[in-house]
Structures are given as structure tokens and as C-alpha cells.
């Protein structure tokens, strides 16, 4: 680990690093029972769903450095897969698993031709894929085509249930992210991000690793799409396959802190909350703001919000005079 990572670990001792997320999880778990209104729960629900997408995207985009503009494909396919499964009477957990699997499978189909491309070419190819899938789904009659697909809900609408499903998925996503980051696989992804050719020259199989990261991210995103399908009673191509979904999934981790564990989470929560509030009245301002933020972050603080946070910690440490030196 680099000098800063060790410092950060020292700042948050082992116990604290487990305690803080656990505390957060606890608070979130108890939240609906404390009696907030359904709107507050909906806001958090949406944010938690974005967390799963954001964290998933980050595995490919942040760890492996492959920027995909096409994650809406997996979100949409997951939504439709879950919707169809739910309508067929399949129990929810299994429906979500199906959604994740369908998305992962699609990611392999997409990845095989596109992941051979480097950087921006991969990015643009993913834009193309995203659009093609949206067009196909808009024309596909058996899933309702452009008119969308209706989910027949069994029983009364239980908002708490959906909230907890989203929470569990988000927790799984973050947990997976941590596991990957610390594993041998994670090291491979990082090396690919830094220098794909050098990684291959040391025995890493870049194509295979990228495919795996892609599949993992797609599965999480697909499951999130499935969660969304369960919540709404109606989905249609512009809503789940739209380019704006891909953009959102990309913006969240990039602004929150690309390549970190909690950056995508922060980005997702902030984006989700603001988006839901502004979507009715000023959607363009929302994206305009994010565009500006993205420019500023890329130019001045590529580490995003998380990077700023890290700088603050370093600043605090040197201030506290513990004798630590600043990095060369």
C-alpha cells in the first residue's frame, strides 16, 4: 500500500474501519422504522439502488480503468429480466438473481468485441452498444416495445420491503468491491489500469480480467435494475435503457472518487438525492452542474470528493504534528 493508504489506515484504526460502515448500515437498517415519510424512504431507496450501479461500474471503470458509457444496457436488461420473472411468479430473490445473470451474460457478449479496444475507443464503442440495444428493445414487440412493460404486482405495495432489498444489494455491492480491491484479481485490475501492456508483460491476462470485471459490474447493475423493476409497476426503454442512465452511472463514481471504495457510494448518494429533487423542475441544471463538476474534478482533483477527503486527512495529520512527512 502506498504511504497515504497506510496513513489513512492509521487514522482509522482497524476497529474504526469496521465500526463506521457497520454503524452506517445499522442506521440505514433502522431508518424506515423511525417513522419518516414515504418520500424520504423513496429518496434513500433510489440512492441505494444507484450505489449498487455506481459501485459495480467502478470495478471496471475505477479499478481497471475502462470507462464504459454503456451500463444502461445492463440496468435495462436486468429490469426487464426481473420484470418478466416477477410476472411469471418467480420469487423476488430469484428474479434478482436472474436479472444479475442476464446482465452478466450480456456483458460478456458486449465485452468480447469491445474490450479489445483501448481507452476512448472502448468508451465510444459502449455508447454505440447502448444505443443499439435501446433501439432493439424499443422495437421488440414481445416485451411491449416502445409502450413498455407492465409488472403485475402481487399483494399490496410494501415500500419497506423494497427499501431493504435495495439496502441489502448495496451492502453486497460494497462488500464485493472491498473483496475485489484486496484480492489478487484486484491487483490485476489496477495494473491493467496503470499500464495494460506492462501488466501483460508480467503475466496478467488483460482481456480476461477486463471481461470478469465487466461481468461483475454488469451483474450488480442488472440486479439494481431488477430492484427498480420491482419497485415501479411499469418500465419502458427510454426509462431504463436511456443514455442518461449510462451517463448517471458513470458520473456518480467519477465525481465521488473514481477507483476508491467509498467514492462511488458518496457520488451515488449525492447524485441520487439531488437528482430526485431536481428531476421534476430542473433536470438540465442538474446535468449542467455535473458537467461542470466533472470538468473541475478532472482538471483539479481527479480523486473526486474522496480525493479531497484524503487531502483533508493528510492536512489534519501534518497539522497534528505527529511527525509524518508529506509524500514526495
Amino acid at each position, binding site marked *: 500500500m502506498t504511504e497515504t493508504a497506510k496513513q489513512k489506515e492509521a487514522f482509522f484504526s482497524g476497529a474504526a474501519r469496521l465500526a463506521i460502515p457497520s454503524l452506517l448500515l445499522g442506521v440505514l437498517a433502522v431508518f424506515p422504522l423511525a417513522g419518516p415519510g414515504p418520500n424520504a424512504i423513496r429518496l434513500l431507496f433510489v440512492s441505494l439502488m444507484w450505489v449498487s450501479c455506481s459501485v459495480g461500474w467502478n470495478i471496471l471503470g475505477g479499478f481497471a480503468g475502462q470507462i464504459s458509457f454503456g451500463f444502461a444496457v445492463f440496468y435495462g436488461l436486468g429490469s426487464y429480466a426481473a420484470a418478466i420473472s416477477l410476472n411469471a411468479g418467480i420469487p423476488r430473490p430469484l428474479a434478482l438473481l436472474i436479472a444479475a445473470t442476464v446482465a452478466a451474460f450480456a456483458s460478456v457478449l458486449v465485452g468480447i468485441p469491445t474490450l479489445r479496444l483501448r481507452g*476512448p475507443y472502448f468508451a465510444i464503442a459502449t455508447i454505440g452498444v447502448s444505443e443499439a440495444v435501446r433501439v432493439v428493445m*424499443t422495437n421488440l414487440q414481445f416485451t411491449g416495445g416502445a409502450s413498455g412493460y407492465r409488472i403485475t404486482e402481487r399483494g399490496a405495495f410494501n415500500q419497506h420491503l423494497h427499501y431493504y432489498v435495495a439496502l441489502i444489494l448495496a451492502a453486497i455491492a460494497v462488500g464485493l468491491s472491498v473483496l475485489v480491491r484486496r484480492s489478487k484479481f484486484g491487483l490485476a485490475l489496477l495494473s491493467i489500469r496503470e499500464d495494460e501492456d506492462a501488466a501483460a508483460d508480467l503475466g496478467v491476462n488483460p482481456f480476461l480480467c477486463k471481461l470478469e470485471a465487466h461481468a461483475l459490474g454488469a451483474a450488480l447493475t442488472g440486479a439494481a435494475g431488477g430492484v427498480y423493476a420491482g419497485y415501479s409497476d411499469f418500465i419502458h426503454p427510454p426509462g431504463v435503457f436511456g443514455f442518461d442512465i449510462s451517463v448517471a452511472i458513470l458520473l456518480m463514481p467519477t465525481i465521488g472518487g473514481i477507483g476508491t471504495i467509498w467514492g462511488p457510494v458518496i457520488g451515488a448518494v449525492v447524485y441520487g438525492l439531488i437528482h430526485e429533487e431536481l428531476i421534476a423542475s430542473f433536470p438540465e441544471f442538474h446535468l449542467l452542474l455535473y458537467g461542470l463538476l466533472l470538468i473541475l474534478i478532472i482538471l483539479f482533483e481527479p480523486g473526486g470528493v474522496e480525493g479531497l477527503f484524503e487531502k483533508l486527512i493528510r492536512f489534519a495529520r501534518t497539522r497534528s504534528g505527529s511527525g509524518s512527512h508529506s509524500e514526495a
Partner: protein
Amino acid sequence: MSTVDFLNLLVSAFLLAGVYAVMSVGMTVIYGVMKIVNLAHAGFLMLGAYFVYELFERFHLDPLIGVVLTYPAFYFFGIAIHWLIVRRIPRSDVPTTTSLLLLFGLWLVLQNLGYIIWGNADRSILTSRTFSTIQLGPLIFPTVRLVVFGAAVVSLLALEILLHRTWFGRSVRALMQNSESGQLVGVNVEKTARTAFGLGVAFAGAAGGLLAMMYSFTPDFGGAFLLRAFVIIVLGGLESFGGVAIGALILSLVETFSILVIPSGYQPAISFSLLALGLVILPGGVAGLWNRRQRLT
């Protein structure tokens, strides 16, 4: 299908290819010199369209004149953007995700500024040309398409002259072939990059204006053309202008004739399918095309 119909379609495809070429040339210049994939290209296309539209609506300026004015206006706009944002991107010989995300951010800003200023209603530029047609023998074409094609050809010829008769053109061609050697023989990289960016934006804006003469548009109309520009560059070869012409022709031919075989709903997926096809069957493998040519020692 009769010969006349076939010829009509063929010529339509050619006319379209002209505009597509102008549209892609902007991206090619910027990529060739700076190795930056300009995602904001879509935003400049859009702004070009609205620029010509506003000149038409407010000052009753013929859109063709509007397009001509776009060149200098957007050239300086491009220089300003370069100064403000693009020059801060660290120089690289291979395209980077930094530049990609930065220009994507710029696209978001431009597109949403477009929405805020103009809203999302469809706009179009309707002149007497829009509905009239010209007849050449048995073939009939909308006048506007011929006019636009003419403007496109003139623009491309001007670019050719620029590339082969000026210091700038020489520098661009040198940098496109090998940026290090270019620097060694005294090419002013900073100045060339700035001019290239300005030129790229100018062509994007002009292309937007030309497209606006033919199609109705909203602030997000750049997106579909961005993808097309990329397909063209892939098909034709990222770093040659002749390649752009070939790529533009292939795309327009496929798009025009595909109407005969594919349900119209699937039309937009054409660009992507060509993209995938091009990437998969390119000779020497895809990786060979995208990586810099290996230096020989």
C-alpha cells in the same frame, strides 16, 4: 426497383456522404494532432445548428451565409475553449481517459446549456430551398441537399488547400505522422494544437449548420451524429482525410440502402452495427489499428 429509383438512392447517398465527411473531419483533425477524442464534438454540432438557426430567425440571414459565418465564429470559440480547458490536459501520444472524461463533461455542459436556452422543442430552418426540388434528367433531388453537398465539397477542398499549402497544414501532417519527430524538426506543438482544435470546432459548427438545413433538431441532435462520426473514422482510418471520405461514403451508402431491407425502427442501430463490423474485421486485428505504430529500433 427501377433504375431511376436506384440512381436516386445512390445519388442521395453521395450527397449525404459529403455532409458526413464535413462532420467527421473536425474530429479527425483534433484526434490526429492532439490524440484527443473530442466527445464534445456533438455539442459543437448542436451549437452550430442553433447558431445558423438564430441568424436565420433573427436576421433573416440565408443559412448558407450562416454556415460561412460559422467557420470564423466557431474557430475562435474553439480557440477559447482550448485556452480555457483543453490545454490543461497533459500531453500524451495515446488517447487518455482524462481527455475523454473532460470533453464528455464539456459535452454535458454544452448540451444542457442548449436545453436551458432553447428548450427541447423541435426546430427547423425552412427556406424556399427546403421544399423545392431540382430535376437532372430522370433524377429528382431536394434542392437543399444539393446545396449542402456543394458547401461540403467547398469546405473539404478548402481544408485540403490548408493542409498542403500552409505552415499549419504541414505542422498538422507532421504531428499526425509522428509527434516526436514533428517536434524535433521545429513544429510548434502548442500553436498547432490550438489551431487544430479551433479548426476542428469550426468544422463541427459548420457541419451542424449544414445538417440543420436538412433536418429538424433539438439540443441532443449531436449525439446520433457523434456516433456516426466515429463510425466513419473507424471505417476510414483515424488519421487520414481520404479515409474520412471513404468512411463517410460507406456509411451513407449503407444507411441509404438499408431502408430497403430493414424496418425503419431499427435504422439507428445501423451505425452501431457498422461500427462493430468494422472493428471486428479490420485487417491486422483491432489492436494493431488502435495502438500507435510500434517504434522501430
